[in-house]
Every structure is written in structure tokens, then in C-alpha cells.
């Protein structure tokens, strides 16, 4: 039974409980309640419950078959991170480098709460936030611009920015003018749908959107991916400006080595789910890092 149970995720378990509950309830209702009591169910209700029970068992069976065949199974993914120790300090830019598929994005997602971690801790201002859902971490000051930007395509630029209000107390819900001086192009496009923007504009919007929540940790996942050089430079300038303004830890996951090197105060290099090199940029041995980035 335990082996069987382990094949279910939470939804499967809920369904199992529902089914077993109905299974237990039907004969009780049919037999245990005396015929003449006011709680006695007419026979057709019992028949109805019985029928529903059959369908539920059928669904459960289908679920099991699907589970075994691996169809529709909801990713019980492999372990992506093994030995990770990383520190992001307020007022500094920390760059995480590494080849494709070494777990950089998984690390960011674990930090902002999109992936659950099996062991370990995510400490923020003295509190372990590992058990908190993502929206509560956002309210504690985690801002996130994901890989692939993930702009809300049918919301306007202004509405995209306004989604960040959810992380703010009611009386602080406004878009900082400073955001538009960092990314002037957005100011002209407030009415356009997010999905109609170009890749570079979307990246700027994604960072701006994270900034609306007034984050204390800004997590950027490959902000230069697929973007023309002039905008990459703009984004770099924006990040430096944010660092100088202070009050914010900036964590950048990047594959574009030179750009990240020029930006970073601290760096970490990942390989196969683990941080293998880390330290301050001024102590970085470039050849050692390059060796771990080349394919």
C-alpha cells in the first residue's frame, strides 16, 4: 500500500481519500441507518452514490495506468542541485556562471521559491524562507526576472508593471519614476501589449517589473540571452546604477562571461549542480573560470 501511495502526488492522494471515503460511506448510509429514520436515504440515492463510486474507481485506475506509463505524470524531477553555497550581499552584484544545464536556473528558482528544496536552507535577513511559497518571498523583497522574460503577453506594459503591486503594502503601490529613467523606452510603450514588444524591450520590461516590487534581492536569469549588443550595454548600465543606489543585492545568472565579469563584485561558478569556484572578482583567476565555461 505504501509503495502504491508513493506513486501519487498530492492530487492523487486527495482523490484516493475521496474515493475511499465514498466507499466507506455508501454501505454505512445504505445499511447502518434504520429504514424509518429521517436520515435514511432513498434507494436511488444509494444507487447514485454507488455509481459515482464506480466512476471514481475507474478514474483512479486510469490514473494508476497513466502513472505507470509515464503519461501526464507531473515531473517528479531529478535532483538538480547538490552542494550549493552561495551568498548575495546587499550593495553588491553576484554573478553565477556555468555551462548549460549545470543548475544555474534551478538555483535561482529554488531561491525565489518556484522549486522546492529537499534539504538545506534559504536564509534571508536572518529568516529561513525555504518553506515559504513564492508570493510570500516576493513580499519579503525577492524580485525575479526569469529566463525567457515571461512577460504577461496580453497585459499592457503598464499592467505588466502593475502586477508587482501585489507584493507591496496598499499605500506604497506606485511605479517609481526612477524605473523609467533606467529604461526610457518603456515610458513610450505603456499602452502596448507586453507580447507585442521586441525581445530586448521585453527584457527591460521584465527587469522593470521586478523593480516595481522594490526588491532587496534582484534575481536576473540570463538577461543578455538573445538580445542585441546595444541593449545588453543598457542593461549592464542599469544594473550598475542600481548597485550604486544601494539597498539591493543583485544576483545575475549568466553565460556571457565578459559582460558578467565586468559587472560582478562576487562570482560563483557551477558545475553539475554544485558551486565549484566562488569568491570576489578581484581575486578571480580568469583562466580557471574559462576552463569551466568552455564546452
Amino acid at each position, binding site marked *: 500500500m505504501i509503495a502504491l501511495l508513493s506513486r501519487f502526488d*498530492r*492530487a492523487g492522494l*486527495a*482523490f484516493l481519500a*475521496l474515493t475511499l471515503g465514498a466507499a466507506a460511506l455508501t454501505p454505512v448510509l445504505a445499511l447502518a441507518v434504520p429504514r424509518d429514520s429521517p436520515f435514511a436515504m432513498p434507494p436511488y*440515492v444509494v444507487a*447514485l452514490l454507488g455509481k*459515482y463510486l464506480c*466512476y*471514481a474507481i475507474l*478514474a483512479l485506475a*486510469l*490514473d494508476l495506468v497513466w502513472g505507470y506509463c509515464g503519461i*501526464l505524470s*507531473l515531473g517528479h524531477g531529478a535532483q538538480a542541485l547538490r552542494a550549493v553555497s552561495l551568498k548575495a550581499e546587499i550593495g553588491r552584484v553576484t554573478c553565477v556562471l556555468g555551462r548549460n544545464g549545470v543548475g544555474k536556473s534551478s538555483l535561482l528558482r529554488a531561491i*525565489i*521559491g*518556484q522549486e522546492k528544496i529537499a534539504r538545506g536552507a534559504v536564509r534571508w535577513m536572518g529568516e529561513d524562507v525555504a518553506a515559504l*511559497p*513564492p*508570493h510570500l518571498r*516576493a*513580499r519579503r523583497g*525577492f524580485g*525575479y526576472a*526569469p529566463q525567457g522574460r*515571461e*512577460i*504577461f*503577453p*496580453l*497585459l499592457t506594459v503598464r*499592467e505588466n508593471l*502593475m*502586477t*508587482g*503591486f*501585489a*507584493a*507591496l503594502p496598499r499605500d506604497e503601490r506606485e511605479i517609481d519614476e526612477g524605473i523609467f529613467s533606467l529604461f526610457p523606452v518603456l515610458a513610450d510603450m505603456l499602452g502596448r*501589449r*507586453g*507580447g*507585442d514588444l521586441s525581445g530586448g524591450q*521585453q527584457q527591460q520590461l521584465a527587469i522593470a*517589473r521586478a523593480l516595481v*516590487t522594490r526588491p532587496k534581492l534582484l534575481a536576473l536569469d540570463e538577461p543578455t540571452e538573445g538580445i542585441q549588443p546595444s541593449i545588453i550595454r543598457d542593461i549592464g548600465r542599469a544594473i550598475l546604477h542600481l548597485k550604486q543606489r544601494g539597498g539591493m543585492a543583485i544576483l545575475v545568472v549568466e553565460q556571457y562571461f565578459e559582460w558578467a565579469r565586468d559587472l560582478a563584485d562576487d562570482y560563483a561558478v557551477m558545475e553539475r549542480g554544485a558551486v565549484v569556484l566562488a569568491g570576489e572578482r578581484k581575486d578571480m583567476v580568469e583562466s580557471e573560470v574559462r576552463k569551466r565555461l568552455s564546452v
Partner: protein
Amino acid sequence: MNRRVVYQTTGGALIDAKSGATLTGVSPDSFKKARVNNALRRAIEAALGALTLANPDPQKRVDAAEAVFKTRDAKALPALKAQLAKESDPRAAAALRQALAAIVALDDSTAAPDRVAAIAELQPRGDEDAESLIGEIAAKAKDPAVQRAATAALSSIKTRLALWSVAQNLWYGVSASSVLLLAAIGLAITFGVMGVINMTHGEMVMLGAYATFVVQSVLPPSLSEWSLAIALPVAFLVSAGVGVALERAVIQFLYGRPLETLLATWGVSLILQQAVRSVFGANNRQVHAPKFMSGAFDLGGLSITSGRLWIIALAILAFVALQLALRATSFGLRMRAVTQNRRMAAAMGISTGRIDMLAFALGSGIAGVALSQIDNVSPNLGQGYIIDSFMVVVLGGVGNLWGTLLGAATLGVANKLLEPMTGAALGKILLLVFIILFIQKRPRGLFALKGRAVEA
């Protein structure tokens, strides 16, 4: 023979009909009872008609003229002519002229030109009464000129009536669309926006209707005119509450699992139906429409019931309110964000679980007000709406309220226009076939979203 007419009051006193004087010392038995035959009846009716034709109330005069138009009693002719000569009210005058024309046109003894003129007078009236009258003339008249005029007038009236009947069906279609829209618009949120196949949606409609029934039953009669104003919010709250309970108890564990959601919610819909059947009984219960919603009026050849008019107003109101809620409130913005990218919405600080719950409450609540003004409620009333509602949402394009509006309008009107030609069952089948073909051609429905935004 003593020819005196006397009538007896309910008090038993005898009164001389001619002088109005009360007779004393005479036994009722000494009089012979007047025998009522057709001749007497006609005489009395004509006298009554003439008297009402002269009634000081113009509306009464119109009614009397209409009555003469229907009976076409030639004896009313002198009274009609007399009244027409001194008539000041234009509506009454028109009614009098038509009654006059009806008698003249039907009378074989009048000269042909007069009858043709009378037919010309009758033709603009253009309703069923005029049709049957002129049809009678066309069939019976011996004079060829009269017959020609009658046949021409008849065909013109027939075309006009056919047009009005199409318009009437259109109106029925619009009215059916509005109920469909109210039922489907909530589903457009839960199914269209959140992607949950909620088979209990029809039961939300049913629960709202029962909430209205309960409100009407417990309110004192003095408040019955206001029952709807109280019932609407109550129905909304009841359905929304059940919707939230359902979402928290069952659906939230099944997001992303359509088959299980369908089965589980279907089971819950059976349970809800049975629960209502156990509490209220299996029979239909009557919901009374308040006075301002009952009654009807004519608009040209259309007969419009005010109840339907109110339902349409309610549907439009619900649609506008929902659009506003989605476009202009922070809840609406968050809901749209969750719809478009759940994970990213959570990362922006939006509590997705709470938004799901509220969206479900909104969708279910709107379903609850859908039927709260309709006359009969029964436990399986929701069943009739669930399939239609899904068809509307799929036809309109998933996740788009304007599509839902257009889908409801299309289905409702098409259904009512098809029904007189094909019958209800075949009409439904034809519509279903049409929708299947349409979805083959345009899988995203009427209002497919275009542009870079969709692929992003």
C-alpha cells in the same frame, strides 16, 4: 295585453324599465319572464355597443370600436357613423374608421368602389384580424374589382406578418441569448480563464434560483415587490459560497488534471442535485415575478414581455460589471496575470490560491443570478444549461468575454430562428453540427487572439 317591461333588483324591488320608477304592490309572479333569444341578444349588444361607443373615456371608445371590428356587426353602423362625426380623439377616430371599413368591406350590398376604399383603409392595419377579414372578403366577394383589391391587400399583409414573425423570433432569440449569456459568462471565467472543467456550473445556476425561491418564501408579502432586489445578492452569495467551498475542498487539488476535475465536479453536481431534491422535494417550485416584471406590451407587430426585457438588462449589466471588474480593478489585473502565467504571477507576489478562490466565487456567483427571475425552479434545472454554456464558451473562444457575448448571441438567435422550421430537437442537433464544423475551421473560436502576443 299590458306591455310593460320591468326588472327586479337583487333586493327584490321591481322597477319599471322605461320610467325607472319603483313599483309597489305588484307581485313578481304577475309578470311574464322575457325569453332571451338571439334577436333580443343582438338588440341588446347593438344598444350596448352604441352606448360604449359614446363613452366619455377615449380608451373605452377604442375598445368598443375594436369589439365592433371583431364582430363586424352591421347594426352598429349608425352608432359608428354618429360617433365618428363628432370624434375628437385621433386614436378613437382611427379605430372607429377601421371598424366602419370592416363592416363596409364585408357587406356585399355596398358599391364596389366603396368596398375597395374600405379594403385600402384596412390594409395598413396589417395584423392577424385584418388578415382573416380580408381573406374572407377575397374568398367570398363576387365583384372582380373588390376581389382583386382584397387579394392584393391580403398578400401584402401576409408578407408583413411574415416579417414581423421573423422579428418576433429574433426577439425571442435575443431574450434566450441573454439567459445563455448569464449562465455562460461565469463559465467563461472558470473554464475559459482558469481552465477548470466545472460540471457543477449548472448546479450553481440552480442553487441561485432556489435561493430566490427561499427569499420569496420567507419575505412578508408587504416586501414581495422588493424580493428580487434582495434575492439577487442572496443568490449571488449562495452560489459564490458553494463555489468557493467546492474550489477549496475538491478542485484546488486537481488543477492541471482535466479528467479528474470533470469526474469529481460531475459527482459533486449529482450530490448537489440530490441535496436540493431532499430538502425542497422533486417537484417544481414557483417563483413569482414582481409586478414591474410581469405584463407585456406591443411594439409594432412584436409582443414584448417586460420580464424578458429585464433579463436582457440584467445580462448586459452583468457583462459590463464583469468587464469592469476584469479591466479596472486590481483583482481583475491579478486574475488576468494568473491566467496568462501562473508561476510568474506568483513570483510577482500574487497569491495565486487566493485569486483562484475569488475567481471561482465570481464565476459561480454570476451563474447564481442567471435564473433568479424565472418562474419555475426544479432540482435538475441546471442540467439544461451546462451543455449550452460550454458550447457558448467554446464557440466564443476560450478566455475571451467578448467572444462569450457573441457566442451567446449567435447560439440563442440561431436556435430560435431554426426552431420554427425544424423543431426544437433537430434545431439543437443542427447547431451542434454547426459548432463542430466551425471549431474544425477555427479551433480557437470566434475571437481568436492574434499577433505576437499569443505566441509569446
